Each structure stands twice: as structure tokens, then as C-alpha cells.
């Protein structure tokens, strides 16, 4: 009897472990694997964009409704501290040469510069006053052009009760506004810059258009659209193949535009209410983060894209890929079942 019971135990132990592993081993490799989740108790409201200071292993996240920038250890996802002194942070950028963190602060109608060493405020650049409506979205979108040392920042529009918007060009070395691009639209969303061709692309969401700006003249020279484009919010681009990726909402759709013609070459269903999109030229992948989850696409050819995964992310709609760490980050707000939190994924080949 003793022998039988002992054998039963040994059988149980043997069976317990391998059954799960057998199935795991036979399952297809997913493009990303969740490594960790860092809960953020006490932080409520939406988050916006992320940035990284690789030198210090710092990941920054704009907690726009908590009125802070949250700092994490990039390699592990460990939460380190909160930076105060911001009102409604949206887009963030880190400038290595200046060792400064840029914050597009919609609640302050400004672009703020912080020391990345101790997070004290270094400078403030006044933008179009968006306080008249209380919408806190002037400014919202921004794009750091590392080659030109310019930070492009959208402001004005409906938040400022103006019939047009502006993209201010801020020199990140001098913190001076060196140019202004007038855009006939009141809700600017994501920006992308094609340095090689001196072109800037911007989602003009209220008009369901993509504005094409000639950076030599700072003028909008063309607008693109496509019949079912709606609430176009996120943007990324593949420089090598001249493909611009735009994601719309309601429904969630990813469009690939030929940047030479402005025509759509492919369209795919993706998560809804997306705010973040990343093009990974090494892996030939597009990551779309939306409140429904994370859609991951593979570029089969420059005109053909296929979805390889839809993953739940607890409502996280912004993301950052750090190729140097081979990690992808998604930040999600507090939900009915969970605290807010940072999801850290390993990127698989």
C-alpha cells in the first residue's frame, strides 16, 4: 500500500509539470512575451506617451490626468519616482546631447524642458494659450527630430478656440521657436517627419485628412484622405519603402499609404481607440496600441500586411519599443479590476 501511495505521488509530480510545458512547447511563438507588470496604485486617469533615457536606464511615462511624469527603470519596469511640476503632460522626448526631457504640457499651454539628471525645470516655452476652453490639448502631439534637433509640437485649434492649428518648430538646443506651420484643422494628432525628403506628415483628425508639409517652406502642400478614414489618430512610417501607416478609430483600421502617391495600398482591421503606433524596421513589424489591446502586424511586402497577434493590454493605448533592450512597453490606466500599470514585453524573433 505504502508503495502504491508513493508511486501515486511520483506519478502526480511527473504529470503535473510536463503537461503544461508540453502544450507551451508546442504552441506557436508569439511575437512578444509579457515579462512583467508593475502596478501603480494611486495613479488614476489616462496616460499618454512614453520616452527613454538609455544612459540612465530611465523610462518616462506621461500621466496626463495624474499631472505627473512617472519614471521607471527601463530594463526591469520597476517604478522609481514621479516628476511633478507638470499640468497635463502629453508627448515626451529625451534629448541625449542636452540631457534634457521635453514635455508637451497641454494644461500649461507650453513646452517644458527638464534636466534628465535631477528633473528640475530648466525652461518653459509659451505656446498658443489653450486655457480658454479648459480642454488641455494645446499642445498635445509632438515629434522629436533627432537629426534636425527640432521638436515639432502641435497647438492651437479647438482647445484654444481657434479655427486653425499650428505646429511650432522648437530648436532643442536653444529652446527657441524657429518656425511655425499653419494647418487648416482644429484637431491635430500624430506627426511623422521624413528627413530625407524634408516632409512632415500630420493627422488632421477633424477633417479626416493627412496633411503633407514641405519643411523647406513650412507650408502644407497636400492633403490625403481615403473614403472610410475616421478619427485618424496614430501614425508611423517606413522610410525605406516610403509607406506611411495611419490608424483610425471607430472602427479600428490600419492604413498603409504610398508616400509617393498618397494612395492606400493596404488596409487591415486592428484594435479600436488606438493612440500609439510603432514601426519596427528590423523586425518588419507594426505595433498598434489601443484601448482594446495590442495589434501586431508583419510587413509581408511593402504593399501587404498581415496581423500576427491581438493581445489584451488592460486598456493600454500607448506603447514604446526600445530596440536596444529588445523590449516593448504598454502603459494602462486603472480599470474596474486592476490598478494602473506598466506592461513590459520581451520582443521575440
Amino acid at each position, binding site marked *: 500500500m505504502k508503495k502504491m501511495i*508513493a508511486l501515486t505521488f511520483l506519478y502526480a*509530480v511527473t504529470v503535473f509539470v510536463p503537461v503544461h510545458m508540453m502544450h507551451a512547447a508546442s504552441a*506557436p511563438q508569439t511575437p512578444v512575451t509579457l515579462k512583467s507588470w508593475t502596478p501603480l496604485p494611486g495613479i488614476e486617469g489616462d496616460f499618454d506617451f512614453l520616452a527613454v533615457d538609455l544612459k540612465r536606464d530611465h523610462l518616462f511615462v506621461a500621466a496626463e490626468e495624474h499631472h505627473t511624469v512617472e519614471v521607471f527603470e527601463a530594463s526591469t519596469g520597476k517604478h522609481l519616482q514621479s516628476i511633478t511640476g507638470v499640468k497635463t503632460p502629453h508627448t515626451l522626448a529625451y534629448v541625449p546631447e542636452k540631457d534634457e526631457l521635453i514635455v508637451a504640457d497641454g494644461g500649461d499651454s507650453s513646452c517644458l524642458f527638464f534636466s534628465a539628471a535631477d528633473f528640475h525645470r530648466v525652461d518653459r516655452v509659451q505656446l498658443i494659450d489653450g486655457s480658454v476652453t479648459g480642454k488641455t490639448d494645446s499642445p498635445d502631439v509632438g515629434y522629436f527630430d533627432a537629426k534636425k534637433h527640432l521638436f515639432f509640437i502641435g497647438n492651437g485649434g479647438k482647445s484654444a478656440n481657434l479655427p486653425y492649428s499650428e505646429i511650432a518648430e522648437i530648436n532643442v538646443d536653444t529652446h527657441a521657436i524657429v518656425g511655425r506651420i499653419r494647418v487648416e484643422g482644429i484637431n491635430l494628432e500624430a506627426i511623422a517627419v521624413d528627413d530625407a525628403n524634408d516632409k512632415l506628415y500630420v493627422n488632421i483628425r477633424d477633417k479626416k485628412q493627412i496633411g503633407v508639409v514641405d519643411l523647406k517652406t513650412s507650408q502644407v502642400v497636400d492633403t490625403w484622405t481615403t473614403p472610410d478614414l475616421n478619427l485618424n489618430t496614430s501614425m508611423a512610417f517606413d522610410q525605406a519603402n516610403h509607406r506611411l501607416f495611419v490608424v483610425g478609430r471607430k472602427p479600428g483600421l490600419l492604413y498603409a499609404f504610398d508616400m509617393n502617391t498618397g494612395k492606400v495600398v493596404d488596409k487591415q482591421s486592428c484594435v479600436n481607440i488606438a493612440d500609439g503606433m510603432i514601426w519596427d524596421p528590423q523586425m518588419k513589424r507594426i505595433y498598434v496600441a489601443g484601448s482594446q489591446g495590442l495589434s501586431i502586424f508583419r510587413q509581408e511586402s511593402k504593399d501587404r500586411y498581415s496581423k500576427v497577434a491581438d493581445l489584451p493590454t488592460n486598456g493600454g493605448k500607448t506603447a514604446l519599443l526600445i530596440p536596444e533592450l529588445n523590449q516593448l512597453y504598454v502603459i494602462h490606466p486603472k480599470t474596474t479590476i486592476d490598478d494602473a500599470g506598466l506592461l513590459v514585453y520581451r520582443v521575440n524573433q
Partner: protein
Amino acid sequence: MINRIAAAGLTILVSSAGLAAPSLTAQQPLPANYIRVEAPMAQRLTVATKQHHPEIVKLGLHATPPSATDNAIIGSDAPAKIGKKSSDKDMQKVAAAKENAERIEKDGIYDLFLPLTDAKGRDIGQGFVVMEVPFKNASNPEQALKIGEKIRDEIQREIPSRDALYQQ
């Protein structure tokens, strides 16, 4: 020593989280294709979700309970099915890790299989949901899967962790 190991073995076998077995003598024997499952949250979630979705006719939530060896139904709109082991066919789909819609002519339904994780995308023990969509509500497998994905996502958003499924 063997006694102690054997006792530990029995403890593991009968009292693992998610397996309801407070006393070996007090319980009715189970059919061979059943395991004991106590997953109140999973059951509540399944029933509540089904009530909100008249466009489907069956809903089952499957997973391998913590420390159990078998994958089984842990939530169902037909409570008598709770504890029933998942079929080999279902386990093949688990291994493939892909959603699937099978057209069943004789029943007039699409039989759906969709992988399930927690709200953050973490494993809940080879989790998946099965449901049936009548032909009158979907004219092709893609449409049926759209319905299924929406319902699966709703369930997923309510699962904070694997352990939570087995709590009150």
C-alpha cells in the same frame, strides 16, 4: 520517509487550489471524464456574460485549475458541465493557440473556440472559451468569430489573474 512523501502526495492530489476536495469520504464519485472544480468567479462571469449576449446559445470557459493536471470546464451556462474535462479536439486547438469557427450543419450553428488570457494577457492555465453562434446571427465563419472575439474580450477584461477565477 515514504509515509511522509505519500502524505504530501495525497495532499497535493486532493487539496490544490481550484480543486474542491475537503474530504475524500464526503464526496460523491465523479464520472471518469470529470474533475472537481470550484471556480466561483469563473462561473459568475460566464453566466453574467451569457445573459448579456442572446446572439450566442452556449458559453463555456475552460482552463487547467492551479495544480490540476487536466483542462476542464470551470464556468458554463450549463452548470452540470462544470468539471467536465476538455476534449482531445479542444486540446489540439489549445496547442495550435488559434481561434477557430467550425460550421456545424446539423445544429445550424458555428462552434467557436477562442484562446483566453487574463486582462493583461497572462496565461490562466491553457484558457479558452467555447460558444455557439446560430446561422441566423452570422452568415459566415468570419462574422461568427467577430461575435466571439467581442464576447471573449469582454470576459478577458474582467479577469485580473488566474487565481482570481477560483475565488469568491
